[in-house]
């Protein structure tokens, strides 16, 4: 068995046995949901339904119900799209990249992070759809054989690359997530007493029996999918950034965008994981599995990616001046000092200053501070996209067309609605799905569990054998 250095902090606190792990994860699913869950679900559902209502009004009336104009053709719609896609990135990074790098601390968070990814990509995918003038013809972006003549999609368009990138990303993430869920569903199935639940979980578990052969294949598939998903982590947001980078609009036409967008995505994604995880661990009693060390690790990722993002901002500023391009230079002067200076200032404060605070160990191990910063970062990252999209468009080449963007209440409704829908999905996930990869956690219990780690083998070997037989 893999033996971990004694000085490494344990990843599972307390005297957890294998059975305890199963119990801890399955209990919320099997018990009645707490009142708080209903309250939160109710709020999320109402907000989500309001968003759905706004979307229906939008589809029935026209894109004009948003605050867009002839100069600013994209604003909150694509801002939200990029924001949600970015949030999704942490899940894939945790499940794929950290798997390949054998970062065991990921096991505590990968399940819910992946769930977050999928729900975030749902929300993200919604925006390119509803932002279309004619959604009902949206399938024309797919290269479908057709009888319209020689009509075919335009492979030059980054928007088309987006279609492929997002759909690939969503399908790979979904498969990856689901494969990981199968053994855990089997565990729940085996414990389920109510017939309906048993039936449901046995369907979901795909007949998993836990045989060695199945575990062997499971590991292999996980690795293969991790291999597939890893390039996606970098490709998806690179391609999203191409929407802007390949254009001719000053402030968009920037070669730094792909790495900068990927870093920003990971940055915001980890922040969202923090937000969700800090609440979830408390609410579901998972403090033993997701503890300060995990939070600290994630904060370090936030700090590193935040610094990359900050460097990118400053590089952009430098290049805009150094290039000597009049429009480029003005675009950045305008961002910082123009009518949208407040958006730029929010972005700079939230994304450049706040992650630097993580250099202090005291701060990065403080859960309250982490929670606050995680929200600050996501606000900052929303503003980053808003700044890139709106402040570049609103004052581009011809001053005659310069304009301002004011969101309508439908803009706000749709955005807030997607947050509601996201939480509807996430709460359902927390209620009915195993929020920790319990079978994966068990594999590190002996190497990284507090009660096993650095203790005499006899004592723990005994109890481990005991627990191994249970499920």
């Amino acid at each position, binding site marked *: 068995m893999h033996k971990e250095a004694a000085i490494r902090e344990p990843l599972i606190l307390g005297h957890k046995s294998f059975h305890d792990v199963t119990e801890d994860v399955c209990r919320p699913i099997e018990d009645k949901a707490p009142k708080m869950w209903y309250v939160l679900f109710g709020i999320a559902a109402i907000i989500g339904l309001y968003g759905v209502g706004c979307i229906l009004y939008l589809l029935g009336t026209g894109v004009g119900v948003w605050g867009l104009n*002839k*100069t600013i053709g994209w604003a909150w719609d694509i801002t939200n799209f990029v924001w949600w896609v970015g949030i999704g990135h942490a899940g894939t990074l945790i499940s794929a990249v950290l798997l390949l790098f054998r970062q065991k601390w990921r096991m505590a968070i990968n399940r819910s992070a992946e769930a977050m990814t999928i729900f975030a990509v749902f929300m993200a995918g919604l925006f390119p759809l509803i*932002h279309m003038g004619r959604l009902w013809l949206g399938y024309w972006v797919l290269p479908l054989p057709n009888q319209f003549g020689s009509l*075919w999609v*335009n492979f030059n368009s980054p928007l*088309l690359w987006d279609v492929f990138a997002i759909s690939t990303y969503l399908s790979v993430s979904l498969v990856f997530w689901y494969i990981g869920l199968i053994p855990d569903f089997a565990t729940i199935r085996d414990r389920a007493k109510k017939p309906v639940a048993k039936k449901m979980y046995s369907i979901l578990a795909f007949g998993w029996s836990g045989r060695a052969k199945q575990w062997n294949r499971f590991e292999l598939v996980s690795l293969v999918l991790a291999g597939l998903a890893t390039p996606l982590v970098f490709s998806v947001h690179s391609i999203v950034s191409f929407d802007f980078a390949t254009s*001719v609009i000053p402030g968009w036409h920037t070669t730094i965008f792909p790495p900068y967008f990927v870093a920003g995505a990971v940055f915001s994604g980890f922040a969202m994981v923090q937000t969700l995880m800090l609440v979830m661990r408390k609410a579901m009693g998972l403090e033993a599995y997701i503890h300060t060390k995990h939070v600290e690790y994630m904060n370090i990722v936030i700090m590193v990616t935040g610094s990359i993002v900050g460097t990118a901002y400053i590089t952009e500023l430098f290049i805009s001046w150094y290039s000597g391009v009049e429009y480029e230079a003005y675009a950045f002067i305008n961002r910082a000092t123009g009518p949208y200076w407040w958006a730029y200032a929010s972005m700079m404060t939230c994304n450049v200053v706040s992650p630097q605070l993580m250099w202090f160990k005291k701060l990065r191990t403080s859960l309250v501070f982490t929670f606050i910063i995680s929200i600050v970062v996501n606000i900052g990252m929303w503003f980053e996209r808003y700044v890139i999209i709106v402040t570049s468009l609103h004052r581009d*080449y011809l*001053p005659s067309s310069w*304009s301002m963007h004011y969101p309508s209440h439908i803009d706000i409704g749709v955005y807030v609605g997607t947050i509601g829908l996201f939480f509807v999905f996430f709460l359902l996930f927390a209620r009915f799905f195993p929020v920790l990869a319990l079978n994966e956690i068990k594999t590190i219990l002996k190497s990284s569990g507090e009660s096993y780690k650095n203790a005499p083998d006899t004592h723990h070997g005994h109890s481990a054998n005991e627990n191994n037989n249970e499920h």
Partner: protein
Amino acid sequence: MGMTRKYWKGLDELKETPEFLKSRDEEFPKEMSVEDFLSDDSLAESSTDRRDFLKFLGFSVAAATVAACEAPVVKAIPYVNKPENVTPGMPTWYASTYYDGNSYASIVVKTREGRPIFIKGNKDHGITKGATNPQIIASVLGLYDSARLTSPTKRSELTTWSAVDKDIKAAFAQVKAKNGKVVLVSNSIISPSTYDAIAALGAASGSTPENETFQHIQYDAQSYAGIRKANMETFGEAFIPDYDFSKAKTIVSVGADFMNSWLLPTQFVPQYISSRNPDGEWMSKHFQFETNMSITGSNADERGMIKPSQQANVLAYMLKNLGSPVNGVSTELSTQASKVADMAVKSLKASKGASLVIAGSNNAAVQILVNKLNMVLGSYNTCIHPANKINMFQSQDDKMNTFVNDVVSGKGPDMVLFYGVNPVYNLSNGKEFGEALKKIKNTISFAGHADETAVNCEFVCPDHHALEAWNDFNPKKSHYAIAQPTIRPLYNTAQAQESMMVWGGVASRGGKDSKVFYDVIAKNWDTYGFQTQAEIADLATYWGLKVHNSVGEEVSLEPVAVTFNAAALSGLSEKLPKTSTLEVEMYQKAGLGVGDQANNPWLQELPDPITKVTWDNYITMNPVEMAGKYATTFDQEHGLNLATITVNGKSIKLPVYPTPGQTPGTVGVALGYGRGANQEKIGRAAFQTKEYGGYAEDENGKLMPIGANAFAFVGSENGTMSYSAPASIKQEEGMYIIAATQIHHTVMGRHSIVRETTLETYKNKDKEAYNPSYTLQKLDENGHHVEAPMSEFDLWDAHPVEKIGHRWAMTIDLNSCIGCGSCLIACQSENNVPVVGKDEVRRGREMHWIRIDRYFSSDEEAAIGTRKDKDTFSFDKAEIAAENPKVIHMPMMCQHCNHAPCETVCPVAATTHSNEGLNQMTYNRCIGTRYCANNCPYKVRRFNWFNYPSYKKFTDINPAQDDIGRMVLNPDVTIRTRGVMEKCSFCVQKIQAGKLEAKKEDRPVKDGDVTTACADACPANAIIVGDWNDLKSIVRTSSDDKRSYQALEEVGVKPNVWYKTKVRNEDNKELAHLQVEPVAHSNGGHEVKAHH
């Protein structure tokens, strides 16, 4: 020949097998009686069971449902007998003439399937040389106005012509019997034949030379009586002479907006433009002294800011410096204005005998000074032609004033007729006049709508729309013209002249196809035209030719000498307007003019050429004066401060709009707004609408007019109307949202958008000094960095449009464009561009395919688009327009880039490049991602945010939502649906038509075959369209000119549109300092780079 061969269709037939015989014999089923059929027992064993039945039912329901989804099929009904001159799908063009009392032009009307759908200027015939204005082009929409009266009315009740005729004839008899007085109030009548009809009216009233009981008052909303009065005093005859701007080397206009409203702009603009060619022998120098920033002022070389009352001061100042001082008239001017006046004097001295001074004031005393100045300068019979009198604007202000006072004081005549006038709207005491009218027993209006005056009349006898009627015109002494109908009258209307003749007893009603007035015109043209010439022997040929051209032959006139009566100068000072700390000037906008077409949504949505505001009038004030008191910036969410102006106890409340160039101490208000204030049914688009559709209502539940009526301020001064007055202004609570299409006013020192230079630089320096080419560095074969032109750099392969087939291109001369907006309305008319209303415009969503960007200079710029000092240039200061800025108008539409950024980003390839260089938009394929619009550096793409042809928000404004209004739509251009992108197509339908025409004639396409609506409409010929691959085409030559450049060339999108540098005839040392010829690379390469 015997049939020996046997033909068979198959071996079965040949062999006559039993199966074949059976099937042959039973090929057609035998008749079976119903009884037999029903008695067949096997029917009962039919295999249709319950499940089958449900399947069939399900299928039928589904099929019916699916079938119901199909759009209803509307079948086109072909002509049984093809009408003459109407070929479905082919336009027919008719020459005609437009005259509405304020504007005059020779026009050509395009009709499709019998419907007039487009008006453009007649370039071949007439005094206007193809020039029109937005109002003339937009007037075609007025024909299809559903608010027009559909038949005559008596006390607002619809009735029949026979009933009306009977009543009115009886009324005439009554008046005649008691020797009563009849007054006809009309706008200036320039139709010789109409005078015949009016004579019949006089006879009906029993008027005789001895006992004149019939009075005809000619009254214009905008009066020019001052000119006639001044000429009466100085030359002994009340007339308006003809002006020739093409001969004037120095033009000094003191408050006359001669490119937009003053007298005859449609004649003056082409004349003016002809002398503004920097490549010509000479280029005129234009000085403008004015209060409001007008279209004319925005095009002037030098512009002085004066108060309305200072027009006399400027004239006296110039007279003094030209050596003919006028006693008693103040020459006091601001430093700024006197500086410009000094330059003007210098220029006038240098061009004596070839200069022209005009003034906008309607005060006769001011016009006397103008006459004196022109006498001193020797302009008569060089630039001013007293022999060729302009017949427009008879403006009998004194008679009108007496008449109005009579009516108001109850001493009114026994009968009043209103023809082409709306005095209740455009008199300052219109409301009282309207009330008083009701007390007069017999009142008749010929208005097409139940307008402000007509609702107060007993009878309204609606006249035809101008496009439905015959007419003839004599706008000036040397010139005659004809107007011919282009459609059978849509409603039960009757030509006003016919009504006059019927009531006068000299004709009877002719119905819809009436020839009553036509016969009068034809007879007059026979008598005074045909019989006075010898070239054409046959009357039918003569008349056919005249109608075809709609213009008579030019009458040659001998020049008449004028002698100035020096006595006219005495005692002038008392008659001059008094100066005041705050003065208001009333002006006409390019769109609405005097308000006759206030119900025309195209014109309401036409951005004002200077302020770019739509759907409103406002108080213009210099932002320098507004600072600290009023908001000087605004956007779609934040409006402008409201204020009340008071003149002579009458107040109107309007927002205060920051207008650079407005003279400090003055404000301006546009006429023509505030129509329908008492709910008169003047048209659907004449009232304010709400954010989600429907009309806005005030607290009393009444519809709210658009803007406020500034005619309330028009006073009378020495017997003539006065369009300026001392005023007071008071700031009001609250803000007012304004809808402008441009909210940023300067070009921010950007050099590759607009370019301008001075005539001196242009003449003496190399192209690189004022129109530098963009170069980039590249490595030559020896590895050295060399500068190479932009055209050598390509990111990817160019579209194969060079040297193959056609490549449609356009050049736009910024030196010619005056910013009038005619192109915009022509484009709207040609391409079915939707009207979106004020709320959408303020949200930045106007749909115009062509816009005219207007840039003011800032204090940071030596000329628009140049930085005075590169090191101290401040973006903040560059955003603020100068107090008295220079102006450039820049038409901007799709540039049809050969490396179009919109084309690469469309995921579904809905926008593509044609092999003729056009950037095409396939509406059917568009899914509306708007990526193309974002990626357009020129921001010319327009998105259909809503379903404009059906969404309720646009019901009251978009003509396409009105059954009658829809008739104006051009059938060659599709109506775009919601969610698709649209933009300028270079009028691809006209290009195709031009190509077809050439193909039919089996010849290559040549210049003139292909044009766009905007180029066609431009009164200044600023826009040229053609085939760039044709090396000899005008557009190719024009694009190769040394003034030509491409906007944003350095972006590398390779547009097919070229702009030509504006050349001002001014002395601009700062600009001359910047525009230096580049020196050779070896001894100062940085000089070259300085332009990049």
